[in-house]
């Protein structure tokens, strides 16, 4: 496929207004599936958590999971939505082998939650209100694995395997209204929005909210129109964008791609597009028109969901802190300067730092590690920090080792690479690799004496007040001790020796 032409980002924004719309699917962490009693767990042997209902055997009927309804209501309330006093499920009809009944039981014109909105802060500190159109309940499909063929897609595959363990897992789909006015910050806004949704569902404890496991999935709609134009441009829907970084990149990419086409007088095809993490590009999926005919009709096998006012108020009262309130609280607790805190928020590190602090780290140490070395390592691996095999407890442990003087900065950074390599916790690695800082004076004095043997003038220089001369000896000691020497102590000992 020919590489798509991209317009310079700044230029694209000069010419066009960006409109985005986001659909986020949240997998709930209920014990059982949406419509049957099968376990809702990730990673079991294929087709072990299945029953006549979730594989759609003839005669089987769905029954609504009460916990899932409560979770949906909580999410709706946290998004500032109204909750429908009565709402029906609907069938979305289409044939696909991962869909056991060849229809998805979903909600159509009667979503459980509708008309809400949340404020989203982007890296610049600007705050945008994202209006929520609806949040509705539905069931997940099974998981297809296409074997053979070049693309890993169904077309061209030799055969396909279906795992129905995921079929019927409860999902909440959250749909925004079109979001205008973010301009150049639209990509950041998209990512910050999804981050906020994650924070909300984690705070509610209704989802594991792990993007890498597909607990939170985002489809990003992007369209452009000339500044001042009334009519919305044709949109594309980029699917399969499963990290915050990718969401930002995918939206930015679509803006540049669409701008290049439109600037040349071309037209945008309304279609789904696939995001390719490796190449940082999107490619055309299937054409999608508004007339896509799913033949929705009310699900006759289920009675309407009618949550009582008491239930809604009970769930409202139990809502956790709003993300914005939480941020205010954490900044105060951690005593971070505004800029420091904004960096932490923008990097999506609130959870990690909070957990590291809970595990004993000082807020500043946790911040320093996460925004510094850990961010650098994640970047080098082209990953989100959340994707690294590193827990906040590891970071707290590392900070404690440094605090106790057992590791210096350089050694601590080295230990970090071993943690990422899966060698264990920092404390285990220090023991296993013998990396502890040497602050045993005897060993240090021996090394200093050895270094002085080749540089006898240094002691005189120090006595004369030329302290920079000490550096050469400290360097030699560090080298001889493979970096495990406590440099500050070496300097002290050297000065003591000169002045003795």
């Amino acid at each position, binding site marked *: 496929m020919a590489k798509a032409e991209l317009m310079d980002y700044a230029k694209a924004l000069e010419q066009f207004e960006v409109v985005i719309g986001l659909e986020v699917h949240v997998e709930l962490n209920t014990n059982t599936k949406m419509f049957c009693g099968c376990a809702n767990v990730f990673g079991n042997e294929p087709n072990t958590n299945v029953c*006549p209902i979730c*594989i*759609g*055997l*003839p*005669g*089987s*009927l*769905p*029954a*609504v999971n009460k916990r899932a309804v409560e979770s949906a209501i909580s999410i709706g309330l946290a998004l500032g939505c109204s909750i429908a006093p009565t709402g029906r499920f609907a*069938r979305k*009809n289409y*044939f696909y*082998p991962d869909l*056991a*009944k*060849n*229809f998805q039981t979903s909600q159509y014109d009667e979503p459980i939650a509708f008309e809400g909105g949340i404020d989203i802060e982007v890296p610049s500190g600007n705050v945008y209100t994202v209006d929520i159109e609806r949040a509705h309940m539905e069931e997940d499909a099974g998981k297809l694995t296409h074997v053979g063929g070049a693309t890993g897609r*169904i077309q061209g595959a030799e055969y*396909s395997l*279906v795992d129905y363990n995921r079929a019927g897992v409860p999902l909440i789909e959250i749909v925004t209204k079109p979001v205008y006015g973010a301009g150049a910050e639209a990509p950041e806004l998209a990512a910050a929005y999804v981050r906020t949704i994650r924070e909300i569902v984690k705070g509610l404890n209704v989802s594991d909210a792990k993007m890498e496991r597909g607990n939170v999935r985002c489809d990003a709609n992007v369209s452009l129109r000339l500044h001042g134009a009334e009519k919305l441009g044709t949109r594309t829907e980029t699917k399969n964008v499963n990290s915050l970084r990718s969401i930002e990149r995918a939206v930015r990419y679509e803006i540049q791609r669409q701008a290049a086409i439109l600037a040349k007088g071309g037209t945008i095809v309304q279609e789904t597009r696939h995001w390719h993490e490796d190449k940082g590009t999107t490619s055309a999926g299937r054409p999608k028109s508004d*007339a896509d*005919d799913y*033949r*929705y*009709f009310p699900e*006759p*096998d*289920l*009675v309407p969901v009618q949550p009582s006012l008491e239930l809604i108020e009970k769930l409202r009262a139990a809502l956790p802190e709003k993300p914005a309130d939480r941020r205010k609280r954490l900044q105060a607790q951690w005593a971070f300067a505004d800029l420091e805190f904004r960096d932490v928020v923008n990097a999506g590190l609130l959870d990690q730092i909070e957990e590291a602090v809970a595990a004993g780290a000082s807020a500043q140490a946790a911040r320093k590690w996460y925004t510094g070395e850990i961010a650098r390592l994640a970047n080098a691996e082209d990953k989100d920090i959340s994707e690294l095999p590193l827990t906040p407890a590891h970071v707290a442990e590392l900070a404690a080792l440094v605090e106790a003087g057992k590791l210096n900065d350089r050694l601590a950074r080295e230990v970090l690479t071993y943690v990422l390599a899966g060698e264990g916790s920092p404390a285990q690695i220090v023991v296993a690799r013998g990396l502890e800082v040497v602050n045993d004076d005897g060993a240090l004095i021996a090394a200093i004496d050895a270094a002085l043997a080749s540089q006898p003038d240094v002691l005189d220089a120090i006595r004369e007040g030329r302290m920079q001369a000490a550096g050469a000896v400290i360097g030699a000691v560090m080298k001889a001790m493979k970096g495990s020497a406590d440099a500050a102590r070496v300097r002290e000992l050297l000065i003591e020796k000169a002045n003795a």
Partner: protein
Amino acid sequence: MSNLVFKPAHELVQLLKSGEVTSVELTQAFLDRIAQFNGEVNAYLHVSAESALATAADVDRRRAAGEALPDLAGLPIAVKDNLTTTDAPTTSGSKILEGWVPQYDATVVAKLRAQLMPILGKTNLDEFAMGSSTEYSAFGPSHNPWDLDRIPGGSGGGSSSAVAAFLAPIAIGSDTGGSIRYPASVTGTVGIKPTYGAVSRYGLIALASSLDQIGPVSRNVLDSALLQDAIAGYDKHDSTSLPNSLGSMTEAASRKDVKGLRIGVIKQLQGEGFQDGVLNRFNEALEDLKAAGAQIVEVDCPSFEYAIAAYYLILPAEASSNLAKFDSVRFGLRVTPEGNPTIERVMAATREAGFGPEVKRRIILGTYALSSGYYDAYYGSAQKVRTLIQRDFAAAFAKADVLVSPTAPTTAFKIGEKNEDPLAMYLNDVATIPANLAGIPGISLPIGTADEDNLPVGIQFLAPAMEDSRLYHVGAVLESILEAKWGKTMMDFAPKLENLVKGAN
């Protein structure tokens, strides 16, 4: 041949309880008669001799040991083949499910097992219960025991012919637009469609979910009452099942008089299009009820005119979606076409080969009715008609305790007679469909034979939702009035199957 098979189910229950008859003896008597006549009647698609006898033996052993047993323990029963059974194939009359043995029992089947009722086998039906004659069964039509050249009604012609031919004392049916009541009407038997939700649909292979209802088929009203009491009740697996009990049908079927009962004759369901012999028997039955002290009033249900049209939009719409799961991926038939077998081509080839003509017709109708741009005009309008029909019923029930009509416009027609005209076939259900659209209960019971053809005529009573007991009450009273008048039961008018079969040979 033992005379046991000709006895009503409630008598057999007493004989079993008193120990005069063993369940094995009784079950074997039915199995023998099935072996003798099922070839001619084709009531059963599958006979479960072994498991039926095992259940029977278990009942006999436990009864001998003095255990307390459920009311219907040991009484054999036939089950329509659109209910899942773990010990017998379940086809729903379709090639697409041929040989499929379900992994789970329908709730109703589980209740029959809990009652320790030997299940004799699975009865024939129009494919996926789409039809009024069993002629659309992929496994050949069932034959009416009153005249083997005629249809036994449908879709539940297997259950009606099994009961009418004494191949079962009692049976389970399902009624979406008349599939219990119409077969009862043309075979001289009793059939009840309970209130929507009175009996769990879990394990019933869905035709149209908002219309389907499971109910009893028998040779007298009391037998059906015993069965409804055994199978009704809330089921957590069926969200549409009713949470509250509707009371004892057995008790309602034991009431003796109808003095003061207001019976509303539906203006729209008589006269033109109804066979003379049907109307004669119907009017006589009304006279009999009046003589017994009932008050006969006329009620007007103007929206019934649109019932068939609405039904043939709602039913195919739901069916087109319900039948989408038959795609070869997880169970049932799989046809792999020549050439490059993509998933779409395998699904298409399987559905092409596995579904019969009426099923395809309704899937296409329903897919169209739900299509974007047509939804409001078709499915949407049909739902509005449904509301209007419910309002007609509400108004009618303000004037009458039960409503009445002939169950069907005609007596049983000949096999093959209406094959070329699906619309004519649809008209058989003109009187039964409104009850399904409104979710209310209905009973059909025999009121004699038509003068012109000596074939059974059925009368239908309808009651408000959850008032099923009224049907058993009025049905049982009318039945006893007629039996007193005739000096025998309805089935005593029927020709002996032995003679019919001999004649055919």
